[in-house]
């Protein structure tokens, strides 16, 4: 089978750790470094032409965005190798990291056990939310649209001094665009993801947005205006009155 051949091609050092929606993720060693390989495997439900086109675009987007982020001073995993032939990207395996999703879930459970109020939980998550807002502000100030902002696509790294760093991952849907519309939709996607995944901390987004505004000052007013417009579209709001 072609599929097995591809797995072997990655070498025996690599172990499949996850099958996401888009890619199979392998963990292993590449040139002596802990490495993640993301293989955007063929999706047989899509037409071959369409699938090839989409995959190629996404690999390109991911590589480009990582580079742009690096220039802008936003943390992302370092890129080691891009292999169009095998539809793979090799990148740094960020050590000592958890996804924001797991982190919020963990903190929520702890708070529940301590019988804390929603307010105290929010207080605990406040520094993280601030940090997220800051990173996103910077991202948009540099005209990078992530395209798939969720709590699973952000890593939290804590060093020995307890300094928090947010590392953004999964740039497959990203593009470079200066329009307010795209930035607003990017934020909207994040808010929706937070609402559906972490319903207990729905106010978290307000803090993120606050920090975002401070970071991306120049555009904050217009992005917010667009953001409200996006919410008013279609069937997304409930009719009052």
């Amino acid at each position, binding site marked *: 089978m072609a599929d097995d051949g591809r797995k072997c091609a990655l070498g025996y050092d690599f172990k499949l750790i996850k*099958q*996401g*929606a*888009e890619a199979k993720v392998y963990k292993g060693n590449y040139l002596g470094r802990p490495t993640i390989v993301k293989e955007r495997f063929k*999706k*047989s*439900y*899509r*037409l071959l*032409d*369409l699938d090839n*086109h*989409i995959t190629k675009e996404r690999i390109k987007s991911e590589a480009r965005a990582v580079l742009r982020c690096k220039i802008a001073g936003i943390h992302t995993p370092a890129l080691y190798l891009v292999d169009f032939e095998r539809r793979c990207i090799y990148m740094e395996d960020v050590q000592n990291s958890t996804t924001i999703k797991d982190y919020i879930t963990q903190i929520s459970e702890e708070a529940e056990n301590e019988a804390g109020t929603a307010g105290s939980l929010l207080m605990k998550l406040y520094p993280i939310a601030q940090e997220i807002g800051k990173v996103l502000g910077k991202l948009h100030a540099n005209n990078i649209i992530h*395209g*798939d*902002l*969720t709590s*699973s696509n952000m890593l939290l790294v804590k060093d020995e001094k307890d300094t928090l760093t947010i590392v953004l991952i999964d740039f497959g*849907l990203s593009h470079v665009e200066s329009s307010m519309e795209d930035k607003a*939709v*990017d934020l*909207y*996607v*994040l808010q*929706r*993801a937070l*609402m*559906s*995944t972490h*319903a207990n901390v729905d106010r978290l987004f307000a803090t993120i947005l606050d920090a975002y505004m401070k970071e991306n000052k120049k555009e904050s007013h217009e992005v917010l205006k667009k953001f409200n417009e*996006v919410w008013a*579209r*279609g*069937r*997304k*709001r*409930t*009719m009052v009155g």
Partner: protein
Amino acid sequence: MVIAIGFEGSANKLGIGIVHNGVVLSNCRRTYITPPGEGFLPRETAQHHRSLVLAVLSQALREAAVTPEQIDVVCYTKGPGMAPSLQTVAIVARTIAQLWNKPIIGVNHCIGHIEMGRMITGSDNPIVLYVSGGNTQVIAYSRNRYRVFGETIDIAIGNCLDRFARVLKLSNDPSPGYNIEQLAKKGKKFLSLPYVVKGMDVSFSGILSYIEKQSYQLLKSGEYAPEDLCFSLQEVLFAMLVETTERAMAHCGSQEVLIVGGVGCNLRLQEMMETMCHERGAKLFATDERFCIDNGVMIAQAGFEMFRTGNLTKWDETTVTQRYRTDAVEVTWR
């Protein structure tokens, strides 16, 4: 033992159905069909429903072989949908609830689709893809709500297909989407279209504008046949849906998918979803046009679940609303 009757009329289908503890006793429906190239307008749709609703009601009772006395609860669509047609049907439901002296329940249309899909297919806790003329949502259940993980940020998928059918002047009988599906089967040449996925959300309006604008020239020059355009449009739109559904599955760690809503009876969409599920070792649940397309049974079934858990609608709240989100309803029965 509960017998529930459901009234549905949020769009161009008028449906009345009766269920008896999860068993469908009758499922009657009429569709307001407009001439090719035209959509259905609120006022005319309401007139259609008004002129047929009593005939459909007696047919539903007759086929189910129940008398009004045997019915335990009257359920109707509260929203979302077009106001005039919602109102027409709600008035009938309110009237018979009073005449027969029965409790009444206003049901969220989207919840109706989900609950009936679960009842018919027996799926327990699926990721739901709800695709119809007015809605496109990827839904998962968590903590007493059906939460919307992904949805269209502009028009619905069915709306996109219907409006393209109007461009091609396809017949609206039995539905524009069905006729696109039949043409698409004969399509061969793929036209590259925009592919718009934003996280778990999708957007269709740009794709529609693009193909609307291009189609005249493409068809005139003979470069593409209408079949090819239908084929290309379906392939791209459905790939977007399957992709976002798969994203939600990965995000929630779910191994079941349920497709509901009118577009859900498209066999190509079901086939693509099946392929995706197969690759993930997941299971697909889908229904045919009797249950996919708006009907009264779905309202009766969701109403039955609400009735069972004491979730009645107060008389002065038996109104209708054009906007009524899936995640606005507290789920008391799961």
